[in-house]
């Protein structure tokens, strides 16, 4: 017991407890873990998003000095400056922002005029700037001295050589498009073409040449034929090498003086420094991508190992989530404690994942999965955890150790990495223990349920085929494994899922979730919203107008909105006044500029109907550069092979310049081709001017509007067509009645029978049920083997029908009565004989055929010598005389019978026939069944009074015929052509179905037979006193009229074989199988299950009647039991509960509270359990999860009638009808009415035959319904 071992034990114990906890309360624990994760990740919100975007920092202009190159002071005030704010910037950038408009706007101006003359002013401005010289006491300073001198462009940019400055100051303006040559500009017929000639054709996000030269985002420039702003703006960009405050100041003052901007409120008090991060090129990305590929391969190979669980993908996802959220938690926690991550997250992330790893998770899964399957889930989890606890702990400790070593390398980056990794490891451990374990437990639980259905019964498992890791279960099974393997054919699992084609499933899914509808609706709403918002007369305009009125800054922000001149009150009615605001000082220089006209030269005609927008300056103009692409400056500098990566530039406050031009200037600046090329006639022509002039701008505007409306209309039409199309598609593809109940435990009410919830009435079928009439009273028991159908009514008559044609083959009346149809003679003779023996008590050796109970009590007497009585009957009319010779005559019996019944000429004497006739009539009369009619087409014998004849003949008292004596039939089974009847008297009879002959019987126990099972040569009878009798049938031709067999525990088993072909032996008796009457009995797959009123179920092995399990779990008497070849066992009880059991281990798999009141019947398909209860509900449950899928409300009194035809076709009985349901979706497929008088009787019982016919007892009638059409539909 070293320390290690003790530690180990402790750890494993702790893990065990923890596993129990996790598996017991999965949901709360998962919730708790989720909360923890969220809480730990909360600090991440404050973390700046990673990216390579530039970072800004502003300093006041006043007293600005470039920061010192050495970063001494950095330590001192770390918060004041960012780390990168060290040393001089790469460059200072001065933008001169020019806004210009032609005002007042005149009708006859063209769209080109908006920007042609403003652009022409750029040349003057550039000239002015270039020539600006600062003269002060220290001398003169020209632009050349302070600006950034650039050299050659990069070799790859030759085509830009003429456009970008080389070998000189870096000064950019739109004029560069024309090499700063005004003449060239003036001669250019197509300005826009020139400007856009270098625009990239494809979509490009980074800065284009136009952006670079204009210095404003493209849509702000106003250089477009379709602009409605009528204001052109551009910047002239100056790049300085050094910061020379005086020079800049003088430049600003001069420009402001020359071109005042009256309503400009720029404060111009801060410098903005923009720092650019390191750029990531492809070269850098490739290793990163490689790392990620390796990472994904790692995750793939890891998660592939997850096996033997219900949902591999689910668990793999959980594993990945565990790792990822532990990483997030680690970062979050580190941030919380003040550690700011400096490493590039994307780079170290894969390494972190790899270091933390998925190993523990996999180990956990493997260990849990390999625990014995038959344990409870809780215990499995706990065991799995504790068995791997030591290795997990060791692993974690080792990794922590390694990482701690790494921490002492004292390299800051590695230390940080290690810190993250340590926290990540710890939180990963936490998540593994809480989150993953819990998810695993849920998964295992699901698997248990699902697996139960597929699990092979032990008989079919060869020892070598044992799955690994489940040894314990088989050990346990070893004791009970039967010696003879029972072959069971399992449906291959692929078959189960194949029922529905894939595309149908998709369609069903769509239909169920109404995905298409919802998408269409959402799309429509969004679309309408967009329409409303963007419509020219719509919301946006209105909102904008609202904002305008309230904005104190005027309409600066509203410039883009076209406002009809009539809408807003004209603030400056006088055009002259608007051109020259009163407070603007007149500038002498302005007039010296070339090309400028006297300012008072108004428009030639004085007519202006649209007002040009006033040039306004808003606060957003001050930092217009922010709207540029953040790659703008790096791109510009990269042209000169200057990188901004990890460096910064300083942006000086913008200098605003306002240019106002009057129409005449605009006209004069016009190129002769403008008029022609644009859609307005040349301006100078007076005639054309006046006629078509108004069309110019208005035309452009109208054009724009028309386009917009066209687009809108087209879009609307397209949308409508699309919607209609989708609707049609939807209609075609989706069934009208999609299965709503599939979603939850919805209840489907079947009110008016043929009607669905949706008013959809299923097709009235052409199926005509075949009605089998012949019973006088209500039918009680039904049995079938596919070919034949046996029914038994309350009166005790047994009818045998051909299941295909519906013919009545045989009728076996109750022991006291004559058979009325073909086989009657034999029966009657039999009875005759009995009566004789009864009445006279002359024969102590009474045959066990059908005598009343009291004779049975004479058990100790030697069993009947005469096994073959029926034969005698047709031969002999005087029983007494023939009696001694009866035994000899046994052999040819069947022949005789046939002869007797059909031809009646073979052996019989004439008078025997007479006697029979008399018998029958008498019998009927005595039984007070006057209406009994022969249903079969066979030649009927006239009914003879039976009792009379008997009494006459034998003189025996009629008391022998009291109905109680024979006992009513309580149970009925049919196989081959043998009918097994269990009577309340405790008598077991085997009849030949075709012949209507009693083959053998056994009645040594007087306790009533409540249930019977007849499974290949084996008969099991459950009795009222709780005992079980196992019989075996032997077909033999031996002569022995009497067989006696005693066996083991059975006291004195007397077997009376009355026919030459069939003998029935009592092989075992389980005297006290249950304390109370056995109510349910089923057998399949070599197992026999009994359910009793003592609340327990027992499982027996059919071969040797050995009791394997006693299943306890119900709190009421068992009412119904289901077991099938796949060893699924389900039971329902009076407590309304349904239990699913594992027949292999005897453990309860699930327990569902199904009904209020008794569960009356129960059946299973491969995927569901169907139960019906006294509450007239039929509920369909998912077999693996035990979740209620839906339920069907039944008519009163037919709760128990249900049957499953195929895996997905359910039949239920109703008031005078049966209904077919699609089991998977709960759809009502068809309703078949059984008779005209549908109001009368509910269908009480439904029996499904092999050929998909259904028999339901419908009062005293049987109905045979073939369902081929339904089946076709399903397939």
């Amino acid at each position, binding site marked *: 017991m070293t320390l290690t071992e003790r530690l180990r034990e402790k750890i494993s114990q702790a893990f065990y407890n923890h596993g129990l906890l996790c598996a017991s309360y999965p949901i709360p624990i998962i919730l708790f873990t989720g909360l923890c994760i969220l809480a730990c990740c909360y600090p991440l919100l404050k973390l700046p998003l990673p990216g390579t975007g530039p970072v800004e920092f502003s300093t006041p202009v006043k007293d600005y000095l470039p920061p010192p190159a050495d970063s001494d002071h950095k330590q001192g005030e770390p918060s004041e400056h960012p780390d990168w704010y060290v040393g001089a910037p790469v460059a200072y950038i001065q933008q001169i922002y020019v806004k210009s408009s032609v005002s007042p706007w005149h009708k006859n101006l063209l769209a080109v005029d908006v920007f042609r003359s403003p652009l022409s002013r750029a040349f003057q401005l550039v000239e002015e700037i270039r020539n600006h010289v600062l003269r002060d006491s220290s001398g003169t300073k020209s632009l050349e001295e302070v600006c950034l001198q650039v050299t050659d462009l990069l070799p790859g940019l030759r085509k830009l050589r003429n456009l970008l400055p080389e070998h000189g100051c870096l000064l950019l303006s739109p004029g560069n498009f024309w090499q700063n040559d005004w003449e060239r500009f003036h001669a250019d017929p197509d300005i826009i073409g020139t400007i856009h000639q270098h625009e990239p054709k494809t979509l490009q996000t980074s800065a284009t040449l136009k952006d670079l030269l204009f210095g404003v985002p493209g849509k702000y420039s106003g250089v477009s034929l379709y602009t409605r702003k009528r204001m052109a703006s551009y910047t002239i960009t100056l790049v300085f090498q050094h910061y020379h405050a005086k020079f800049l100041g003088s430049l600003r003052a001069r420009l402001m003086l020359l071109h005042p901007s009256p309503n400009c409120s720029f404060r111009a008090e801060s410098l903005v420094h923009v720092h650019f991060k390191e750029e990531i090129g492809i070269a850098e990305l490739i290793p990163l991508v490689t790392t990620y590929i390796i990472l994904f391969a790692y995750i793939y190979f890891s998660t592939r190992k997850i*096996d033997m669980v219900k949902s591999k993908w689910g668990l793999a996802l959980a594993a990945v989530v565990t790792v990822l959220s532990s990483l997030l938690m680690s970062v979050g926690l580190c941030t919380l404690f003040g550690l700011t991550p400096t490493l590039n997250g994307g780079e170290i992330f894969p390494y972190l994942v790899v270091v933390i790893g998925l190993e523990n998770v996999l180990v956990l899964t493997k260990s849990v999965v390999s625990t014995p399957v038959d344990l409870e889930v809780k215990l499995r989890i706990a065991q799995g955890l504790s068995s791997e606890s030591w290795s997990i702990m060791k692993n974690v400790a080792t990794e922590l150790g390694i990482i701690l070593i790494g921490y002492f390398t004292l390299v800051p980056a590695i230390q940080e990495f290690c810190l993250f990794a340590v926290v990540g490891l710890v939180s990963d451990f936490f998540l593994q223990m809480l989150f993953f374990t819990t998810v695993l437990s849920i998964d295992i639980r699901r698997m248990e349920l699902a697996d139960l259905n597929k699990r092979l019964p032990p008989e079919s498992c060869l020892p070598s085929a044992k799955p690994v890791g489940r040894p314990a279960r088989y050990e346990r099974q070893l004791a009970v494994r039967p010696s003879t393997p029972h072959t069971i054919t399992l449906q291959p699992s692929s078959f189960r899922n194949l029922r529905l084609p894939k595309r149908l499933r998709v369609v069903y899914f769509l239909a169920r979730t109404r995905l298409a509808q919802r998408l269409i609706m959402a799309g429509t709403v969004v679309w309408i919203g967009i329409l409303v918002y963007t419509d020219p007369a719509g919301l946006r305009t209105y909102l904008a107008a609202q904002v305008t009125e309230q904005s104190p800054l005027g309409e600066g922000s509203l410039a883009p909105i076209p406002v009809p001149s009539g809408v807003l009150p004209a603030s400056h009615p006088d055009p002259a006044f608007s051109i020259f605001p009163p407070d603007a000082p007149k500038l002498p220089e302005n007039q010296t500029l070339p090309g400028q006209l006297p300012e008072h030269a108004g428009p030639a005609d004085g007519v202006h109907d649209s007002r040009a927008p006033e040039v306004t300056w808003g606060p957003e103009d001050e930092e217009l550069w922010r709207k540029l692409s953040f790659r703008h400056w790096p791109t510009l500098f990269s042209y000169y092979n200057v990188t901004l990566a990890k460096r910064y530039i300083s942006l000086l406050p913008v200098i605003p310049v306002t240019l106002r031009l009057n129409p005449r200037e605009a006209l004069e600046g016009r190129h002769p081709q403008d008029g022609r090329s644009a859609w307005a006639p040349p301006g100078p022509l007076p005639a054309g001017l006046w006629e078509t002039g108004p069309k110019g701008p208005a035309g452009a505007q109208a054009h724009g509007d028309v386009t917009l409306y066209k687009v809108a209309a087209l879009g609307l039409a397209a949308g409508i067509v699309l919607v209609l199309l989708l609707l049609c598609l939807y209609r075609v593809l989706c069934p009208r009645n999609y299965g709503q109940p599939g979603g939850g435990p919805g209840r489907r009410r079947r009110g008016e029978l043929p009607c669905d919830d949706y008013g959809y009435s299923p097709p009235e079928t052409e199926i005509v049920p075949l009605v089998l009439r012949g019973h006088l009273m209500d039918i009680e028991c039904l049995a079938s083997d596919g070919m034949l159908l046996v029914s038994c009514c309350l009166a005790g008559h047994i009818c045998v029908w051909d299941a295909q044609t519906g013919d009545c083959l045989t009728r076996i009346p109750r022991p006291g009565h004559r058979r009325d149809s073909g086989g009657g003679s034999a029966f009657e003779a039999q009875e005759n004989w009995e009566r004789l023996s009864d009445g006279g008590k002359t024969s102590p050796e009474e045959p066990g055929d059908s005598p009343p109970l009291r004779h049975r009590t004479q058990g100790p007497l030697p069993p009947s010598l005469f096994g073959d009585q029926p034969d005698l009957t047709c031969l002999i009319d005087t029983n007494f005389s023939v009696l001694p010779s009866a035994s000899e005559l046994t052999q040819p019996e069947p022949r005789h019978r046939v002869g007797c019944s059909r031809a009646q000429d073979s052996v019989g004497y004439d008078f025997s026939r007479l006697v029979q006739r008399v018998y029958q009539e008498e019998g009927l009369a005595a039984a007070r069944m006057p209406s009994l009619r022969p249903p079969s087409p066979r030649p009927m014998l006239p009914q003879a009074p039976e009792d009379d004849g008997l009494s006459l003949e034998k003189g025996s008292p009629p008391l022998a015929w009291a109905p109680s004596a024979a006992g009513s039939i309580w149970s009925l089974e049919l196989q081959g052509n043998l009918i097994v009847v269990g009577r309340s008297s405790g008598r077991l009879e085997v009849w030949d179905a075709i012949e209507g002959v009693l083959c053998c019987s056994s009645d040594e126990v007087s306790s009533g037979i409540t249930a019977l099972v007849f499974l290949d040569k084996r008969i099991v009878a459950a009795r009222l006193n709780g005992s079980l009798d196992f019989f075996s049938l032997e077909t033999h031709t031996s002569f022995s009229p009497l067989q006696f067999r005693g066996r083991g525990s059975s006291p004195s088993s007397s077997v009376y074989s009355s026919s030459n072909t069939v003998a029935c032996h009592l092989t075992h008796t389980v005297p006290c199988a249950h304390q109370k009457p056995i109510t349910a009995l089923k057998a399949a797959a070599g197992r026999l299950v009994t359910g009793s009123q003592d609340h327990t179920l027992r499982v027996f092995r059919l071969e040797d009647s050995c009791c394997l399990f006693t299943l306890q779990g119900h709190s009421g008497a068992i009412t119904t039991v289901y077991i099938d070849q796949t060893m699924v066992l389900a039971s329902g009880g009076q407590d309304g509960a349904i239990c699913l059991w594992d027949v292999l281990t005897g453990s309860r798999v699930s327990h569902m509270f199904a009904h209020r009141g008794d569960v009356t019947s129960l059946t299973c398909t491969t995927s569901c359990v169907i139960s019906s209860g006294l509450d007239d509900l039929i509920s369909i449950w998912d077999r693996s999860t035990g979740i209620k899928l839906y339920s069907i409300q039944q008519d009163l009194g037919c709760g128990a009638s249900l049957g499953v035809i195929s895996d997905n076709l359910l039949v239920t009985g109703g008031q005078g009808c049966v209904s077919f349901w699609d089991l998977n979706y709960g759809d009502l497929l068809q309703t078949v009415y059984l008779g005209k008088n549908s109001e009368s009787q509910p269908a009480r019982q439904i029996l499904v035959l092999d050929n998909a016919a259904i028999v339901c007892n419908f009062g005293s009638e049987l109905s045979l319904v073939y369902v081929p059409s339904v089946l076709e539909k399903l397939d």
Partner: protein
Amino acid sequence: MPRLHDHFWSCPCAGAARHLSPPRARSAPATRVGGMIAATRSVPAPGAPDAEPEPRSPRADAGSWHRHLVQRSLVLFSVGVVLALVLNLLQIQRNVTLFPDEVIATIFSSAWWVPPCCGTAAAVVGLLYPCIDSHLGEPHKFKREWASVMRCMAVFVGINHASAKLDFANNVQLSLTLAALSLGLWWTFDRSRSGLGLGITIAFLATLITQFLVYNGVYQYTSPDFLYIRSWLPCIFFSGGVTVGNIGRQLAMGVPEKPHSD
């Protein structure tokens, strides 16, 4: 420590071929890394089905055995080439900022023979490991699964990444750190004496060859700081050897390990 790589891996992006770097030796580590990647991709698909574990092979007929050998070496070779290229990129990316096109060009322009050398070295090492295992009679049992191999590869790339990106105070610290990392790699994924021995041998030989090449002028370091490069070369070689050995062993184990997933 960016300088290291710059120097070592040569590849001036501006096109100035001042220094030809990759010595043959270096090919070994790079080879391995690349190889692993290739292995990840190619092995599952075509390589795996054919790759027969070497220990099992003696029984198999010679033809298929040879075929498997060839296939394995091909896989290893491609792994080596890819890793060489990728790690080379990792080293030169310092210089790369603005014009990726030219960078890509320089990768292939400088020392074309380096990737093939790396591939060959990877193939040799990857075949050598399982071979030695079988000769020593102690088949490698530790963590035989592709997930672990992937992990190992990721750690190897991580070591390279760290050596390329981190700034160390001095060479001693650098080499100590890298040595610790390499040993950690070996201990985590290998833990076999043969692996350790072979790794050390490879590291020694590769470093020697590199020096030899440099002395003969075939190959040049970019920086005069000779000690600096020398301090990390052996570690990289060692971990590369271990990694490629890991891949080789996994490849030698062949298919049976794989299909269990289904």
